Structures are given as structure tokens and as C-alpha cells.
């Protein structure tokens, strides 16, 4: 028996069926039942948020469909129109809470995901350039990153909002400003490791342009840690946006996210009408926990040191 045959036998023993990397990834991920449930819940949450306008009993921001006489109804009370039941009650303006929450979830997720993606694109590009250029540029960029990370996110966001004013675009600017540094630091770290590897040298010998080496060769190899940071930071962004909205310096009343719903319900809390704040808070909490669970599992699966 030749050496190559032995190697082939070994390989078949280790991996009985030929797996694509994606199949292997799926198999590793679904090993944890909790993470699998979290992933299904996350997909369900996103789908619910996407199709919200077609499944909720009323459009909570269409004044023709909202009756102020229905305000602050207890969970389970039928609507005055008699067409449906307010399963989770109504808020101070008479909006059906289930409908308002799903609309709120839409806005919360949209703001969180959008700011997460913009911050990722910006941060990853800056981090890549820092790692590739090196020298003074790199240390200047990393000093700015360090400086920003030494201030808590909520403080930086409040500062920006104090200067820029309120509004959806301003909130996204604030969230991006708060987050880009995490991405830049992560990408720079892995890009530094990658850029010393042989395939980069080979690409350079082939005379490829810097941009192509950076974005075509180094960036794809920095993706695993980046994906983990994206999930965790998106959860942070959603939480931070909710906090800012709760403080009344976030999204305007015309675009109520979950945080604003909680804030609106807060004034009725002291008279015992708990549901207006409680249920939106529960949805917010579930969304954040689910994203974090998925992120944790992704970190374990994508970490080469932990792979078997």
C-alpha cells in the first residue's frame, strides 16, 4: 500500500460523506439546540417584521383605524369596532398593541441593521487600509479608535444627537459613529495576520493592484471574525437605539420604534397599566437575546482554534 492510499483511507475515515464547507458549517452550527432555536426565532422575528403591514389587525398609524375611545384597554378586550380582539391591550392613543409592536419591531430592526451594515462597510474599509498602509496612518487611525472606545457608546451617541438634533438619519449617523471603531479594530487585527501570508505575496508577485489584493484577497479571509462582530454590534445598535428613543432623543413620534412604545407606556405604569411598556420590552429583550445567542454560536463555529 502506498503512502497516498493510506492518506486517502484516513481522509475517508475522518469524513464519511463529502461535505461542502457550507454543509460543514451548518452541521457545526446545529450542534447546539439552543442556538438552532435562536436562529429559527431570529428568522421568524425578521419575517414578522417584514410582513407586519399585511398580518396586523390595524394600521396603528392610520388615524381612521384608531379609536381614541379604545385607549388603554386591558389585554384581551375586544375592539369597539367588534372586528378583532386586542390580545395585548391598547396603548394611550388607542392603538392595538400587537400591531404597534410589530410596526415598532420593523423600525427597530431596520435602524439596527442599516446602521450595522454602514458601520461595517466603513469600519472594515478603514481597518483594512490601516493594516495595509501601516506606519503613521495606521497609528493615527488606531489612536482615534482607542480614543473613541474609551468613551461609552451612549455618551458618544448623546453628544452627537445633542449637536445634530433628532431624526432617523441622525440616529443612524450616531449609531454608525459609535460602532465603526469596533469593526475597524477587528478587521485591522485579522488583516495584519492575513497580509503576512504567502497567498498575498503571490498575488503581489502577479502584479495585482493594491485595491484588488485588499478587497479581493485579504477581506474575504477576514470575514469570519467580522460576521461575529456584525451580529453582536447589531444587537447593541438595536438596544442603543431603543435607549435613545426611550430617553426621548431618538426616533420621532411619527416613526415609533420599540423603545418609543416603552417610553410612551411608562407614564401609565404608575397607574398599574403595565402592558403598554411590558410587552414591547419583552419583544425588544427577546430580539436582543436571540441575536446574541446566534452571535455566540457563530463565534464558536467560526473560530478555527475550536474546530475539531
Amino acid at each position, binding site marked *: 500500500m502506498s503512502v497516498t492510499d493510506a492518506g486517502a483511507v484516513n481522509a475517508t475515515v475522518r469524513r464519511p460523506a463529502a461535505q461542502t464547507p457550507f454543509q460543514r458549517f451548518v452541521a457545526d452550527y446545529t450542534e447546539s439546540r439552543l442556538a438552532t432555536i435562536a436562529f429559527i426565532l431570529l428568522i421568524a422575528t425578521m419575517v414578522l417584521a417584514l410582513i407586519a403591514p399585511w398580518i396586523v389587525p390595524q394600521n396603528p398609524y392610520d388615524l381612521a383605524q384608531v379609536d381614541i375611545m379604545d385607549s388603554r384597554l386591558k389585554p384581551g378586550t375586544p375592539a369597539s369596532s367588534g372586528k378583532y380582539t386586542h390580545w395585548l391591550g391598547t396603548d394611550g392613543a388607542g392603538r392595538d398593541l400587537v400591531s404597534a409592536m410589530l410596526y415598532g419591531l420593523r423600525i427597530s430592526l431596520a435602524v439596527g441593521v442599516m446602521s450595522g451594515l454602514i458601520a461595517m462597510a466603513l469600519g472594515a474599509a478603514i481597518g483594512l487600509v490601516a493594516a495595509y498602509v501601516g506606519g503613521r496612518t495606521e497609528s493615527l487611525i488606531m489612536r482615534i479608535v482607542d480614543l473613541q472606545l474609551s468613551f*461609552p457608546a*451612549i455618551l458618544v451617541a448623546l453628544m452627537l444627537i445633542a*449637536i*445634530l438634533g433628532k431624526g432617523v438619519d441622525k440616529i443612524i449617523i450616531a449609531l454608525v459613529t459609535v460602532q465603526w471603531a469596533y469593526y475597524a479594530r477587528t478587521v485591522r487585527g485579522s488583516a495584519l495576520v492575513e497580509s503576512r501570508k504567502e497567498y498575498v505575496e503571490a498575488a503581489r508577485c502577479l502584479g495585482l493592484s493594491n485595491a484588488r489584493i485588499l478587497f479581493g484577497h485579504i477581506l474575504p479571509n477576514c470575514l469570519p471574525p467580522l460576521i461575529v462582530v456584525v451580529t453582536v454590534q447589531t444587537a447593541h445598535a438595536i438596544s442603543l437605539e431603543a435607549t435613545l428613543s426611550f430617553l426621548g432623543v431618538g426616533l420621532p413620534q411619527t416613526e415609533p420604534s420599540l423603545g418609543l412604545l416603552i417610553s410612551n407606556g411608562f407614564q401609565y405604569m404608575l397607574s398599574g397599566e403595565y402592558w403598554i*411598556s411590558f410587552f414591547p420590552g419583552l419583544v425588544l*429583550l427577546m430580539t436582543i437575546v436571540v441575536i446574541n445567542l446566534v452571535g455566540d454560536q457563530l463565534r464558536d463555529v467560526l473560530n478555527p482554534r475550536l474546530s475539531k
Partner: protein
Amino acid sequence: MTAYIIRRLMQSAAVVLAMSIIVFLGLHVVGDPIYLLIDPQADQAEIERTIRRLGLDQPIYIQYFNFIGNALTGNLGTSFVHGTSALKLIVDRMPATLEIAIAATLMSIFIGIPLGLYAGLKPDGFISKSIMATSILGFSLPTFWVGIMMIMVFAVMLGWLPSTGRGPTATFLGITSSLFTIDGLRHIAMPALNLALLKISLVIRLTRAGTREAIHQDYIKFARAKGISTSRIVGVHLLKNIMIPVVTVLGLEFGNLVAFSVVTETIFAWPGMGKLLIDSIQSLDRPVIVAYLIIIVLLFVIINLVVDILYSILDPRVRIGEKSA
């Protein structure tokens, strides 16, 4: 050592300078300074007079030097809403915020360390697992929602604690604080716990990790071999060694507490600087916002500086690392 402190001081000064430029540019270039600094109810003649008085018709760099000069002499403008010095407003509110931040720090020490020790000493027990699971929740729960739920349970349903405001203050050893009256303590309990939740989780994890690591060290084995009681081993030998990272982290996190008190103060209507900032953003009271930003930046720079210097005294490797870098 002296060289390190001087270098660190210069860095801090550079940070303050950079932040002052950012705040100044933010207010004078991104926003409209006339709108920012003049009462919106003023008429045209009044506006023209104020522009000249504030020097807004001068070149931008002269305006910046005026701004710095005013800031250095403590003149950060007059609040539109309160009609008094913006700086004085903030300084008056500062003790309430520091009080709640200190109370939260104490809570995270006295709740976090015992729980972390227990979880580290008996890692497989049911109670330890519950402690660790709860501490994960402490990280992911949004602070403001937990605060609301606390009000719902302890103030509305059970009626044990007051839901809002700061209790009466008393003076003890020259410090005026609501921590010295019973009613004051009742008022601070919920907000401080709310603010402390995140830090308690953090301290539990740090203490548990430290305990798990230290328990297998030789000095613990040796103390056991000498026949020292378990309570003395844990209370003296173990605790002393795991306290260093815990204290360092808590020091660094103090600034975080002050920043996060914005949220807690708003929920519990606590009359601190954070509540003032939110009120000022709502009512567009710009001079107070500027004053808050400047003070909080200074506070952060000072905290970071003190922690860094203390750390370099405790851990000489930091200084060596600085030199070779």
C-alpha cells in the same frame, strides 16, 4: 515613572484639546451658532446686537480662541431655561449623580464579589449555574426596561419603595448626601441597583474567573496544608489576590456609570446631571448641553488618567511596554 506620567498628562491634554475642537466645530459649523446661542424668542435688533457682542462676525479661529478663553474662565454661557450660569447648574447637579454612581459601585462590590466567589468555589452547583445564567441576562437586558420593571414590581405592585426622586439629604463629616438618611436610602435603592446591574454581572464573572484560577495555585494549597480554616483562606488569601483586577475594572467603569446614569436618572426622575442633559436636549437649552459635554469629557479624561497611573504603579509591565513602543 515621572516621564510616563508627564507623557500621559500630555496625551490627556491633547484629548481635551481635540474634543474642544470637535464640540466647537460641531456647534459652530454643523449647526447655526446664532440659533444655538441666542434665545429663539429674540427680535432682529436683539439678534444683531448679540452677534456683535458674542463676536460671531469674527473669523472662525478667533471665535475658537474666544470660546476657549471663556471656557477656561468658567464662562460657558447662560441657560435659556433657567436663566443662570450653565456651569453652575451642572455643578449643582453633580453630587446627586456621583452619589448614585458611588452607591452603584458599592453595590457591585458587595453583591458581585460574594456571588462570584460562591460560583467560583462551587462551579457545578445549581445555585452557581443560576448565578451565571442571571449574570448573562444582566449583560443583555436593556437597562431602561429593567428599571421600568423594577418600578412596576417594587413601587406599584408591592409598594415597598418610592418610584421617583431623591430623598432628603443629611450632612455627615462635611459631605451632604442622601445616603445618610433612611428615606434617602429608600429612594436610592432602586436607581442604584438598576445602574449597578451591568457592573454586578461584570464583577461576578471577574471574581468567578479569578477564583477558579487562584484556587489551584500553590499558596492556597500551602495554606490548606498548614491547616488554616477555609473561611480564612477564602477571606484573606484568595480575596486579596482576586481583588486587583476587580478594583481596576471598577475604577475604569466608574466613568461608564456616570454616563449610563443618564438613563437611570431619567427613569427614576433622579435630579442629577444626566437628567439635566436630557431635559436640556428636549428644550434645546444649548449652553447647558455644551457645559455638560465639556465637563463630562474632562471627567472621563481625569478618570482614565488616574486609573492608568495607578495601574502603572501596580503593574510595572505597563511602563516597560510604553518605553519599547
